[in-house]
């Protein structure tokens, strides 16, 4: 599709039209502010929708209808429960904000704010569409992970400031999780940077344009190293965003609500929001790095604007997160760290080697291309099986005997 079509440039045109009312020196600033506002508003509404969707998906998986009562107030119109997020928001706002007497009041207040701030910062470098990237950074990927890592610090802040034993345990878990999973997350991204040859997110997305044989998109996930990298990224992203099965800081059945135990009212809502923002950002980064960003999956579908493709991919990833959450039990903290250090990190390192091989064999052609695929897949499958066997050593379904 034409990169300059009216639909594609639509958001930019609106912005330019709006800022054109302002004097020239203020335009750049107003444009940026407008972009920031747009991102925050878009993702805040996505957050509201996601809370509902998540509850609906969980409910449907569990054979329940899910929240379906709140519709338009004072009428009997239910709208599938679309009013639920609004009602939740009002409830959260009107709840009493309780701060424990012995809590560190400043940190207790700062933690949700910091968490939200860091989560929003990460949106800056994600290309939401062909022309829609809030800030064009040369080292966008680096910036993203630097800002993203700080979110766990806010979780630690919350746990520490609450002066609650459960919160403290949660804080410690959050730190352990941060240290363990930042590494596989970054290592899974290194091959992308290596093969794309750039740290800029827009650059990476542009590298994934085009179709092999006019059919298979050249997204990184459709290469052996990309698939493995994506899988590692997905697992690490689940852990980074404290989602089940890695929701240890908030382990409901063990630590009541972990770092959130002493939070109520709007602060709690802020945490909730920040966690969803973090999840969206990580999923957005996953889409950017591995799923071709805003690129259309098939060439004839390219007439649909790029930001819609990005949104669709983002939603798919988010739904996958929910699906995983609906299925899996939680890991224990030692198993969580073991999974990171003994499985994901080595696998990511192997993947780095595979990516190097891929890069070196880029000029193989013809039937040899297939061998290239096979070799790369083998190089990954072997370590995967071996490491997996090591990780699950001693664990197996058991055969039971019966009394005679």
């Amino acid at each position: 599709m034409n990169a300059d079509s009216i639909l594609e440039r639509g958001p930019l045109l609106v912005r330019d039209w709006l800022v054109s009312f302002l004097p020239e020196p203020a335009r750049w600033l107003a444009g940026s502010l407008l972009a920031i506002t747009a991102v925050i508003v878009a993702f805040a509404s996505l957050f509201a929708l996601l809370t509902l969707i998540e509850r609906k998906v969980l409910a449907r998986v569990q054979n329940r209808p899910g929240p379906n009562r709140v519709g338009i107030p004072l009428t009997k119109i239910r709208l599938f429960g679309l009013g639920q997020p609004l009602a939740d928001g009002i409830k959260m706002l009107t709840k009493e904000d309780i701060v424990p007497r012995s809590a560190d009041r400043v940190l207790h207040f700062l933690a949700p704010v910091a968490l939200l701030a860091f989560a929003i910062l990460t949106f800056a470098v994600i290309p939401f569409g062909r022309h829609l990237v809030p800030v064009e950074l040369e080292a966008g990927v680096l910036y993203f992970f630097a800002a993203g890592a700080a979110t766990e610090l806010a979780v630690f802040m919350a746990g520490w400031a609450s002066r609650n034993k459960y919160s403290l345990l949660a804080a410690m878990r959050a730190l352990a999780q941060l240290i363990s999973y930042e590494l596989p997350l970054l290592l899974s991204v290194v091959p992308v940077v290596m093969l794309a040859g750039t740290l800029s997110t827009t650059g990476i997305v542009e590298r994934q344009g085009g179709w092999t044989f006019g059919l298979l998109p050249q997204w990184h996930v459709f290469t052996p190293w990309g698939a493995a990298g994506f899988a590692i990224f997905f697992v690490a992203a689940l852990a980074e965003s404290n989602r089940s099965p890695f929701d240890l800081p908030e382990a409901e059945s063990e630590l009541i609500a972990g770092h959130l135990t002493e939070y109520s009212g709007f602060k709690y809502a802020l945490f909730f929001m920040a966690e969803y923002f973090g999840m969206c950002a990580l999923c957005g980064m996953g889409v950017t790095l591995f799923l071709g960003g805003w690129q259309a999956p098939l060439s004839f579908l390219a007439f649909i604007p790029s930001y819609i493709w990005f949104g669709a991919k983002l939603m798919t990833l988010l739904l996958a997160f929910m699906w995983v959450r609906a299925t899996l039990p939680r890991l224990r903290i030692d198993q969580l760290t073991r999974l990171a250090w003994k499985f994901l990190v080595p696998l990511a390192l192997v993947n780095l080697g595979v990516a190097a091989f891929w890069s070196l064999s880029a000029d193989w052609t013809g039937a040899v291309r297939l061998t290239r695929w096979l070799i790369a897949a083998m190089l990954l499958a072997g370590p995967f099986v071996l490491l997996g066997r090591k990780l699950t050593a001693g664990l197996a379904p058991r055969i039971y005997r019966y009394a005679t």
Partner: protein
Amino acid sequence: MIASDISPLASRLSSGAHTRAVTDPFHGDLLEVSMGPHHPSTHGVFRMQVTLDGETIVKLKPVFGYLHRNHEKLGESTSYLGSMPYTDRLDYLNSMTNNWAYALAVEQLAGQPVPERAEYLRVILAELTRLLNHTCLAGFLLQDCGCSGTPLMYAFREREKILDLFEALSGSRMMCNFQRFGGCRTDASPEWLAAAKQLTDGYGAFLDEYERLITGNEILMARTQGVGALKPDLAISAGITGPMLRATGVDYDLRKVDGYGFYPRFEFRVPLGDHGDTYDRYMIRVLEMRESIKIIQQAFATLPAGPVMDPKAKLRGFRPKPGEAYGRIEGPRGEIGFYLVSDGTPNPYRYRVRPPSFVNLTLLEDLCLGHTVADAVIILGSIDIVLGEVDR
């Protein structure tokens, strides 16, 4: 470097001294956490006073009694019949087996025979209760493991079907109050039997799906295998009964040992575990459910006609001769027994419940030491307690 330097905790555990000063300049401070009585995973108002080294448990004291209502005193101040609805409220998930155990004890005390059809009905209802309880346990245990409600909801969906059956028969979902001394309160209609048969026949499919959902799950195996392992000797000494005992490999099922009711007429197997850990406790229950289905199907096939109540049985003014009796059955959680002493008056002189989950709790600390908080939660879940019964 000797082992104790690497792992001071392990050496402390092996030497038996698992308590140490809360403040210790060399190993860091211990954290004392009071888990419960208001905690999402203590299955009621149960408290564990836990001392933690990091996340590892070095000391754990169960504290309970928050739901204590002196059930035994109540039993001594009401008539024999009047205690029957109170037994519903002991283990409120399994009122049918509680009723049966109490009825059995009173029947032994008074020498009261039970008609054949009533015994069959009791077997059917007890095995349905076992299905219900084990299904719930599987759901709750997985919830404790951190599943976001999915296994629990599937379990509750099936449990609801059994509860509907109970409601149609006894009038109440959980507080059935169904067994009487000398039989059952009402007879099951053919429609009820058909519905129950349909449910039982479809239950295997549910179990298959449930097992596909979770049993082979690597995370579940990692969380439960080797966690809270119990040795058979200790289990016997501590009076552990039910699936928790059989998970350690001890073959002791009252349905086989005592042969009460008409259990000797039915063919079923008793699954045994080899490790006695949480995974075995979970799996033994799943396998027991499959055996229960077989028992119920056999009972339906051979259910005789006839009355469900012994014509000589008395409801009002029931006064057994002086004497005592201890009647016990294999409840879903273990041996539930009632010990009754009669002095010839309408009220029992002594009314004692032998609650399985209370006795099974004896070893909670032994099972949890050296494991983490997260493990303590699932170990407690796999012991399968109901506070209505523990606290009485």
